[in-house]
């Protein structure tokens, strides 16, 4: 039987931990990682809360033992820490990497460095080496060099669904026989550019984000990175490795409604879920847990809620958004939540939707608010982004 594509390793860094174990402990204890901005030099400090990783760039460089000066952006360094863990988890040595493919995703890329030195680039040669990571792909290439990956390497950027699409492409590369092992995922560090951008859109909350709550006022931006190792069955058999879980369903669709907002009925989301179940060849009622996109913006949660109600014909399985823990980590969100989904399958636990108090007026929808032990065999994870981009992934034991 076609069991989809195997996942043989995973790694994660987020505001609730620097590896999978720390993240899982925080999820179990209900410990969120939302705080005031400390590491980004912005005038917005007093207006917003974020899911910030409390490690300076210098500390990240030390963790990775990077020579200085280097041209790694914060996003790249977070990404590399997560990839290292994923390789360890999959028991893959760096010397094996030459035949590996790498599908990265990011929205920030090297923007954190570019914005820092933007004004002085032309006059101060000292930091000019950061100009080379102005485009997103160059960040990926530097990371590939660090891990000695020399095969197919690419970068996807589709806003907040980026990592879901990276995971999807990786699965398709394996299914087509174009790759045996692929590192897939996303990364985004916090920077002034995105904090200010979301500020102009008035999408950020000055308190803790409350997905699916009637009084939700917006999101908390977060930062982080997470990666999976996708592997073909034959490759797994060759090295006698048991997978963590399987990716069985995936799909992307477009809302084609508005450049930044989701349609009222969540048509793109509905289509993405529908196609993902077709790919997986399973029925919606087989889902044990949904990790929702749930950004806590008024628009997303209404649109996603409607799409869920329509798709599951009002019988929605247990669902929650884990963004109250990590904040919205943009390009990394879908891979961070993929790791949470795989942990839910392995540990038979589903996570609480923190900060939820009041049901939304528009419909009767209550997310899971307590941590819950249950048999979890199938998880659906949704991610939606600007440009109407909607993606759904299905993970199974």
């Amino acid at each position: 039987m076609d069991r989809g594509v195997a996942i043989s390793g995973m790694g994660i860094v987020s505001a609730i931990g620097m590896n999978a174990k720390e993240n899982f402990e925080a999820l179990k204890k209900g410990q969120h990682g939302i705080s005031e901005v400390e590491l980004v030099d912005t005038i917005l400090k007093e207006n917003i809360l974020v899911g910030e990783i409390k490690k300076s760039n210098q500390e990240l460089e030390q963790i990775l033992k990077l020579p200085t000066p280097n041209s790694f952006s914060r996003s790249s360094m977070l990404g590399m820490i997560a990839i290292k863990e994923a390789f360890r988890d999959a028991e893959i040595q760096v010397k094996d990497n030459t035949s590996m493919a790498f599908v990265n995703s990011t929205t920030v890329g090297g923007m954190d460095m570019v914005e820092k030195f933007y004004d002085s680039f032309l006059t101060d040669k000292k930091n000019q080496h950061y100009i080379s990571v102005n485009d997103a792909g160059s960040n990926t290439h530097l990371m590939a060099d660090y891990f000695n990956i020399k095969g197919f390497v690419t970068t996807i950027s589709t806003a907040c669904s980026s990592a879901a699409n990276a995971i999807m492409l990786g699965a398709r590369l394996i299914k087509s026989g174009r790759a045996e092992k692929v590192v897939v995922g996303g990364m985004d560090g916090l920077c002034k550019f995105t904090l200010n951008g979301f500020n102009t859109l008035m999408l950020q909350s000055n308190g803790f984000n409350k997905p699916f709550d009637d009084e939700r006022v917006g999101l908390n931006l977060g930062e982080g990175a997470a990666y999976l190792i996708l592997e073909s069955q034959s490759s797994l058999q060759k090295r006698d490795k048991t997978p963590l879980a399987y990716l069985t369903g995936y799909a992307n669709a477009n809302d084609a409604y508005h450049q930044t907002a989701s349609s009222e009925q969540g048509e793109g989301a509905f289509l993405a879920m529908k196609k993902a179940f077709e790919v997986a060849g399973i029925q919606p009622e087989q889902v044990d847990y949904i990790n929702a996109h749930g950004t806590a913006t008024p628009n997303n949660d209404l649109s996603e809620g409607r799409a869920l109600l329509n798709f599951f014909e009002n019988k929605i399985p247990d669902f929650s958004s884990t963004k109250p823990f990590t904040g919205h980590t943009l390009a990394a969100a879908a891979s961070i939540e993929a790791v949470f989904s795989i942990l839910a399958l392995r540990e038979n636990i589903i996570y609480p939707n923190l900060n939820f108090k009041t049901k939304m007026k528009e419909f009767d929808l209550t997310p899971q608010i307590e941590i819950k032990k249950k048999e979890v065999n199938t998880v659906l994870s949704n991610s939606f982004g600007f440009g109407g981009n909607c993606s759904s992934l299905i993970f199974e034991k």
Partner: protein
Amino acid sequence: MNSCFINGIGCVSAQNTFENTFFEDAIDISNLNIVKAIKPNYKSFIPPASIRRMSAGVKNSIVASSVAIKEASADQLDGIIVGTGLGCIQDSENFLNKMIGYNEEYLTPTAFIQSTHNTVSGQIALKLKCKAYNFTYVNTGGSFQSALIDGLLMFEGEEANNILIGGVDEHAEYTNKLYQAIGYYRQDEEGKKNILKQRKSGVIPGEGASYFVLGNEQSDSTYAKILDVQLVNKLDQIDLPSFILDFLSKNELKLDEIDVVILGNNGDDEFDTYYDEASSIFESSTLLYYKHLFGEFLTSSSVATYIAAKILREQVIPEHLLGEQKVRKSDKIGNILIYNQYRGKDHSLILMEDV
């Protein structure tokens, strides 16, 4: 497993590709330091209010994709896949300038929204009300090729009948200066620059938007068939011949069966040696060049794809693409190989066949 045909093309570039007279005549750009695309008549395609708001890359993409879709008579698309090296760099620059210039105050959302990398693919979907698969690749010199590979995967997996693929990049003033400062782009210089003869450090930057409707069925509008695409991020020059030979043998082709090779020479003395290496193994193929007429940009191999498709359909080789070379094969043009790399990274091969 389905085949992949190019059934429609729209190409906005520094040459008259959009008007489709480029094969007859080329514009001399050798005195330019920055090569800009010729603006098409946006008014025929985009409402006036949007023309003011949209950046060049978005506008050129909308125009080029409309033309490609019309030519292919593709009423329904099963995917929109865009590759862009620098993304919407004009709007990124615009937002950055204001954010830094006004110390994070008085900012408006428009530039931020439009700076998102997938603005182009999102805008095309919005215009067409196309709810299908929608991806954007931002992978330096391998952005367009990534989009093509994704497209091939869709046909191989029988997931699509018609898809739109594009490559787009635009100039932004300050960004050009930054790349000049680190030597990626040449410093402004007087006079004519024959990049095919005189190599120096850095490239002459260009821009453009090329869109292709790919279909699983041949039609009256078919230009050519795309057989295979390969992309690797890193390659030592010494390994280039085996990279090319392995790719050809995977596709059951011998070196002398490649009638035309389109090379990405851009005049950068540090990296054009890769093209010398590639040229040296093709003894009987006609070698063509194009960046001396279009400038270099991260998605410039989309222009090479346009050129290859047109040569295969019309069976004509424009003289202005020959550089100092001669036509080595005068009979039928059956197979064309495009080789490109950017600054020694993102080595790609695109293999196309006549129909």
